[in-house]
């Protein structure tokens, strides 16, 4: 898994590509969020459009990221969920936790 990081309108956008799954993708996501926070980011958006699979460790890592960012007074939101990722958030009821957006632009405006 690769994660691209960029800045737009004061928001750090992380765009993982591939699987957020145990052992590789989950670790990469944790590091990317950690690095963004170290670099001073408060508002983080995860663009999920390139993600094919999120296993229970992956979704757990997304929850951890959410908690960590929120505890530091920041915000973590999600954009461009592929239908299979949206299904996972529905089934786990984490859709009630995360703010999700159809486009990156909409998400950025909301911060």
């Amino acid at each position: 898994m690769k994660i691209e990081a960029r800045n737009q309108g004061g928001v750090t956008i992380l765009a993982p590509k591939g699987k957020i799954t145990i052992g590789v993708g989950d670790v990469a996501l944790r590091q990317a969020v950690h690095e963004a926070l170290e670099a001073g980011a408060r508002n983080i958006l995860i663009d999920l459009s390139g993600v094919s699979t999120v296993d229970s460790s992956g979704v757990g890592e997304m929850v951890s990221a959410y908690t960590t960012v929120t505890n530091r007074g920041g915000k973590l939101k999600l954009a461009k969920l592929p239908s299979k990722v949206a299904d996972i958030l529905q089934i786990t009821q984490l859709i009630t936790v995360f703010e999700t957006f159809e486009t990156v632009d909409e998400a950025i405006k909301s911060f």
Partner: protein
Amino acid sequence: MTVIEEPQVRIAIGSRYDHIDLIQVVVDDALGRLGLDDDSRHWVSIAVREAVANAIKHGNQQDPEKEVLVELSLEGEHAVIRVTDRGEGFDPTSVGDPLLPENLLRPSGRGIFYMNSFMDEITYDEIPEGGTRVTMRKRLRPKEAEDASS
């Protein structure tokens, strides 16, 4: 009545997370040949990933010398996948519900829930040699289709 038919496939891997992709590839290929559609295959293979991840992590404690065994078979109308580890075992009835409000923000505890969500049936056994076996079943054709054709 359960009819056990060929084809049967067994795969043993050392307890490393990077073998999980390989298991997914095999499951996907085998289920494709059994005629399961793309979406169902996606969900079944995620369920299998969870079972194998648990076998590696909680069962074999990531000891690469300890094997995880994955068995695929066709039993009547069901694809059946068994995942066996050589760990200490656990009590599946004691596992918490990840949908409870107090668990919703927990970073773990959703693996067995995934398996239950994506498979028709999952059962846990202890094996005599010491270890845990989870058996997961997925109906290959929707029940209506079978009723209609019989």
